[in-house]
């Protein structure tokens, strides 16, 4: 296995260990994003570039942004600015940024090198994946669409705030 795999794997394991040992949720999220990016580099090494792009866009992009929004929504108040300043000390984001930089250099090197993957790895083109997705797996695609719909409806239903009751006289009528 090439040296690039070992660098990316070491970054993935190190940042995952940092995720599970942090006490502050924002620091853990920073390291989790680094871990997902390094796993994306490993996907690229294993001949799945489209899945690497999906990992960066959906996992490290959409899902992490959702969790960050949620964490910031939970502690509203005047002390939010102070805690945010405390969270974003340079010492805290330096190490994740450095790890990201290593991953970026590694990915740029791999793309510029442009040689065949190491022995034992056969790249699978996105075309075959799409053909398989809309051929034998079409039922599963529709099922996952229904799952996402159920997720949207469930999140809306659960996240809704209860209506404020104006007076206790109306209590029995409203509820």
């Amino acid at each position, binding site marked *: *296995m090439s*040296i690039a*795999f*070992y660098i990316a*794997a070491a970054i*993935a*394991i190190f940042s*995952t*260990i940092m*995720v*599970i040992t942090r006490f502050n*949720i924002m620091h*853990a*999220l920073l390291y*989790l994003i680094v*871990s*997902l990016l390094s*796993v994306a580099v*490993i*996907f690229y090494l*294993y*001949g*799945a570039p489209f*899945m690497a792009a*999906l*990992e960066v866009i*959906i*996992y490290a992009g959409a*899902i992490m942004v*959702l*969790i960050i929004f*949620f*964490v910031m929504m*939970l502690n509203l108040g005047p002390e939010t600015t102070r805690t945010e300043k405390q969270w974003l000390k340079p010492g805290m984001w330096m190490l994740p940024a450095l790890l990201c930089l290593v991953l970026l250099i590694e990915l740029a090197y791999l793309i510029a090198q442009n040689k065949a993957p*190491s*022995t*034992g*790895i*056969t*790249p*699978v083109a996105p075309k*075959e*994946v799409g*053909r*398989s*997705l809309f051929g034998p797996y079409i039922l*599963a695609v529709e099922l*996952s669409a229904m*799952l*996402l719909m*159920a*997720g*949207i409806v*469930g*999140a*809306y*239903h*659960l*996240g809704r*705030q209860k209506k404020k009751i104006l007076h206790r006289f109306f209590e029995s009528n409203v509820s």
Partner: protein
Amino acid sequence: MNIHPTTAGMTLAGILFVLGLISILIRRNMIFMLLSVEIMLNAAGLAFIVASSHWAQPDGQVMFMFILSMAAAEVSVGLALILQLYHQLKSLDSDEASRMRG
């Protein structure tokens, strides 16, 4: 440094999965437990990608896309549930929610 790529990838997936499992066992904060589920799902996806490249079949990547959509739905519903529990209990400790009476 001459390990077979499938062995190396599967070992990495196993290590990441065990780290997520350890995290979900030792943490009591509900957001951290959700993050550990994400780590474990990601490790499972890595195992699928490695298997896909080992047998040169697209099925593993198809499975990874399903894991991705499932993780998105799971995170949205899980965060909404945590929000409701936080409004009820004023805390993110999962032990607080051990007794749910209706």
